[in-house]
């Protein structure tokens, strides 16, 4: 399993042809207390960099972008019911959705952890 990151502050962990997507520690910290998430519909096919969902704190709303193209195969209903999971466990229980990759090569072009940390430190 590999974890990669985007400049829009999503993380993506790939396991076979299925990837799990969430927002980074940096993203949830910048947003503050998350109070609402809007998740895509299962079965929806979304292109890379298109909007897949929304995450909102009391003070701000941010779009969640598709790190890669693919079909949504599962969304995190626990997160929908308890959006604070995005703060308390952003890389674990606070995952957003799972996607079946349509072009696995897209993953390779994303940032690795070192590159993302350098990017977000300057963001």
């Amino acid at each position, binding site marked *: 399993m590999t974890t990669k990151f985007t400049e829009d502050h999503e993380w993506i962990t790939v396991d076979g042809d299925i990837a799990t997507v969430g927002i980074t520690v940096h993203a949830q910290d910048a947003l503050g*207390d998350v109070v609402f998430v809007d998740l895509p519909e299962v079965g929806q096919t979304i292109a890379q960099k298109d909007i897949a969902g929304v995450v909102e704190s009391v003070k701000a709303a941010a779009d969640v972008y598709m790190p890669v193209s693919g079909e949504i195969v599962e969304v995190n209903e626990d997160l929908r019911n308890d959006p604070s999971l995005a703060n308390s466990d952003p890389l674990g229980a606070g995952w957003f959705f799972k996607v079946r990759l349509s072009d696995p090569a897209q993953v390779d072009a994303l940032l690795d952890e070192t590159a993302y940390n350098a990017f977000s430190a300057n963001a």
Partner: protein
Amino acid sequence: MSATDASLQHTPLHALHLELGARMVPFAGYAMPVQYPAGLMAEHHHTRSAAGLFDVSHMGQLTLSGPDAAAAFESLMPVDVIGLGENRQRYGLLLNDAGGIIDDLMFVNRGDELFVVVNGACKHGDLAHIALRIGNRCTVTAQFDRALLALQGPQAVTALARLLPGVGQLVFMTGMAARWNGADLYVTRSGYTGEDGFEISLPAESADAFARALLAQPEVKPVGLGARNSLRLEAGLCLYGNDIDTTTTPAEAALNWAIQKVRRTGGARAGGFPGAGHVLAQLDGTSPPARKRVGLVALERVPVREHVLLQDAAGQSVGEVTSGLLGPTADKPVAMGYVCADLAATGTRLNAMVRGKAVPMDVCALPFVPNRYHRG
């Protein structure tokens, strides 16, 4: 523009904010704390349950003095200035010649002068406007270098009275002069959270020490602009620039309560302020406003934010949200906005169009959280 932008001004509490770990953002030309490490939700709840300390030094403080000051100030606003008793405070509205709101403000009759607090983003414009219109009738003095702190919440009186004995005697919308470590303070029992609390005007050089003395009280924690916004919205209070501006009139903004009888049609000092013809015709029913500011509650747990459009059941556009968020105390999405006057009745069902999806909302009475002012 970032919060470290060199063009941003600093309040006298800047170093304290950084020491407390605040996240600083640009606001009204100042670097201001949007939240501290506790976070917006904790700060909001702390203010409603104990006491929150806010730095509002970006706001503009000014005085109007001279024998004609009250009459002169009354010529700029649709409110009763002349009849305001000593050490009493009132909400006021500066209007333009079309009856649009230039700014909303608080003023106190301090006996020898009127003490006025205006919004930070408007203060230079307000000062120019006031000086231009009535500068020949009274002395207008900007005190933009003074600090202003707000201590808000049910335990604010307990904490503040340890530093300033006597403030417990004040009731809502009254004020008193006080001294602390040689500094001249002016304290009013007011604020913008819906809670009991105080605003304290003091010299810049005393602000840091006074704020630290307040933060040393067990009830008090620092609260940023983020929670100030969620608290004022739950309290049903307007944010200038969002909910009111130069394109909205007092009646459209449902600020009728702010206009005393004496200045209305038939009153002893009716009219005589900018836009009076239009403003009074909207208030006395000769020409009712076509739109009104209302409170809105979403029936689904989806935050509805500013600029979201409102539709009626037939899909016709009937208004727009001007402020909205998930109210931490209300525990549901709350908003304010403008709707056609015939849809302004409590209970009217509308649809907010959020990202293309209709979120049902009901028009509801304000405030969303009951006010708990100390009226004595």
